């Protein structure tokens, strides 16, 4: 067992873990933070996407011990549940308003990947959004409303006045 200290959504956590423990299982099973999902075993689907030290990563392909000393941010840290809808992150609001989710299973990973995308490129084109989300699979939406949601959130995060997004 190895001791890890990981700051998750602003809270410091400390546990003795097996070195083989995957970061996503540390989040879900050790911490009970089940907002982050697992959708595959080959690093393809992106459902488990979180931010580690500010970069989007697939938490199924990182060992918890590799994240020792790191800061991890998940979808659960984007908004304070106590504040309700008023506290939502622009991406959360945009996914809701543009119907960027159906079953919602890919959504936490999709939102965290989109957050990274917008941080790297605050004004992405439709093609840049589509290419930037190539590592996240959704089986419900056909992606069109996800693209719309990311464009809409990016506009809000840039501080643009509300624009009608047509993709």
């Amino acid at each position: 067992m190895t001791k890890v200290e990981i700051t998750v959504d602003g809270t410091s956590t400390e546990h003795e873990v097996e070195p083989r423990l995957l970061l996503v299982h540390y989040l879900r099973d050790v911490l009970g933070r089940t907002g982050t999902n697992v959708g595959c075993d080959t690093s393809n689907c992106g459902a488990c996407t979180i931010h580690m030290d500010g970069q989007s990563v697939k938490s199924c392909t990182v060992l918890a011990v590799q994240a020792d000393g790191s800061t991890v941010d998940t979808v659960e840290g984007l908004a304070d549940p106590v504040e309700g809808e008023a506290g939502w992150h622009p991406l959360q609001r945009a996914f809701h308003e543009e119907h960027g989710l159906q079953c919602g299973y890919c959504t936490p990973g999709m939102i965290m990947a989109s957050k990274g995308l917008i941080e790297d490129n605050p004004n992405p084109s439709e093609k840049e959004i589509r290419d930037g989300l190539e590592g996240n699979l959704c089986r419900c939406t056909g992606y069109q409303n996800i693209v719309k949601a990311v464009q809409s959130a990016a506009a809000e995060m840039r501080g643009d006045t509300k624009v009608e997004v047509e993709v």
Partner: protein
Amino acid sequence: MTAIDTPSTKNVGITRLRKEDAHLITGQTNWTDNLQLTGMLHVALVRSPMAHAKVTSVDVSAALDQPGVVAAFTGADLADNWAAGLPCAWPVTPDMVSPTHLPIATDEVRYVGDAVAVVVAQSKYQAADAVEFVEVEYEPLPAVVNMEAAIADGSPLADTTLETNKSFTWQKIDGEIDDAFDGAAHITTRRFVNQRLIPTAIEPRSVVCSPPREHAEYTMWSTTQVPHILRLMLALTCGVPEQELRVIAPDVGGGFGSKLNVYAEEALLLVLARKLRKPVKWTETRSEGYQATCHGRDQVQDLSIAFNEDHTIRGLKVELLADMGAYLQLVTPGVPILGAFMFNSIYKMDALSFTCHGIFTNKTPTDAYRGAGRPEATYGIERLIDEAANELGVEPFELREKNWIKHEEFPYTTIAGIEYDSGNYEAATARAKELFDYDGLRAEQVERRASGDPVQLGIGISTFTEMCGLAPSRVLGSLSYGAGGWEHASVRMLPSGKAEVVTGTSPHGQGHVTSWSQIASDALGVPYEDIEVRHGDTAIAHKGMDTYGSRSLVVGGYAVQVACDKVIAKARKVAAHLLEAAEDDLEFDGGTFSVKGSPDVSTTIQDISLAVFAAHDYPEDMEPSLDSDATVDPENFSYPHGTHLCATEVDTETGEVTIRKYVAVDDIGKVINPQIVEGQIHGGLAQGIAQALWEEAVYDEQGNLKTGSLLDYYVPSAADMPHFDLDRTETPATTNPLGVKGVGEAGTIASTPAVINAVVDALRPMGVNDVLMPASPSNVWNAIQAASAGNTDGGAA
């Protein structure tokens, strides 16, 4: 998407943002795999690496010695626990051959992934480790992987306890089929292949089962589309009295048919909870699920269509080989026979012959996958019409228009004997052509052909219809289906004037909570926000037929409407009593009953709810209740239709296909929530296009799944998917009071032939008349190479 500005319809027909979203976008979710129960144990299965073998020994003793392992069982250890094998609810013929399907195999394994033993441990890591210590000895048997070989003389058997690899032959002949072909002026004959697909709901399957402890009964949480069906079937399979089993479908992450089943792991976990008296959990890994969760499609179609001199259709012959896989799952044999009602599609003809052979192979069982039988049929007829048009030398639209049912001919009884209640193919087609710039793209196609551009342009048409709203119970009975097609809803007015709607449908992404709230809000006059919709728990929604086959709105939404109407009928009695007026003198609008001509003499549904709760003063001839139950059995299927147009650019040097433009004009009747409808179509299109271009489950000759993970099975991402241009025409269904038709599968059903017709259209000048799906670079390039060598069928024959 504009609101209809009348008080009585202030929700239906407008976009309401989904009530479902808040917990899903914040990670406050309730997926089955999230559950952690005190003392819960973790289950892992040992699966056969061989497609077909005798199991000569299974030894779990070394696994039992591993850290954390609590129990381990072989198939033989558990054999006495099954009251019956896993169910097939659709015995399509009286003599259908159906192998016994035990959740854990005992002495023969029949596909890679068939379970042979189970390990139970304190953690999932320990369970995964212990699996490697189960020693299994196999004696290989020949694997049957190809359907035609399977029914050839002397074929080895996929199941050595059977005498044949054929499960059934199902036939339906309408009209004088021989006459139709004997005198034909032209006959077009083709073989098309609908490849095997893996549904790939993004949430992997997961099951948790607790013995009586959390609740008074066995409680199963499962990633299922069908909690009600599952409860009944597990009771029968495991010998647990139905009333002692509660099934909960919590948040479910997509299904597309793959969670419309009764799976080995569900039965197994119930039995393990009973044996061990502990809560148990199993969650598949994606690669495991690719072996153990039902596949879809896998059908070979031999089609002939006969024409008169004037290009009207005389008759259609359909002969199908449908791959069942190794076992018959819940509705496996019923899926292809739905084609008997769909191959004729929107076209008039005098005769239709449909024959379907269900074949066993040593592969993962197939079952419903988005569209279930209708995509296959639509692909077949829409490809065949294009091929016939080419042979007859006419524009593909011209041949369609000549043969389709005119809008003034509805209701129309088709050659297959079912009545299409409404439709307007002309209107949808005209709108689609306009949106698409059909003439402009045809002109560009001519230019590119003339200039010899290595990237050729193709235009594909799909004028589809489908049957959904499964289904009239009597029709299902006539098709030997094991249950009915009714749906149930309850409405309860609460004392505070709020309402609870309980539905027997079981959504997993479709937005029923929102849409049902819209229907109930308008019907009850209760604000949208004041309505709660409950579902997916047999202890709460005690009765239901669940969600599949685009049935939820058409049947379940209909039930909500009827249940609300019943509440309003009761409320009207109370209102008349309280207002001292005759019932017939009352108007009801927007939640208020008022006396005709005296609008000030009124009371509201909220006031009536409180009055009925208090029950101090209510009519003599009724109970003090504003609750209602409605079970509706639809009188007919519903028949969405539409015209989809696809433009593809095909790189003739590399075989790469790119979708340049996709237009979908759908007629799904009335809509409840336009945004949700658009989302359903987008998602449906993506899956249908994915079949056309990317996805295929491939087995080798030994029965190994070569596309065993998302590394090799190509589910498209946003970067691969085109933009879609949508519109709707609206021809209301006449068979339900909402005028709705169902939309869950339309996009999938329509899009696959639209794309392939476009690919073939691009390559037609090169002599290509078919391309195998998926139209991968390799398949396209092979078709081009074969055509240049004089073989034009893309390799299908």
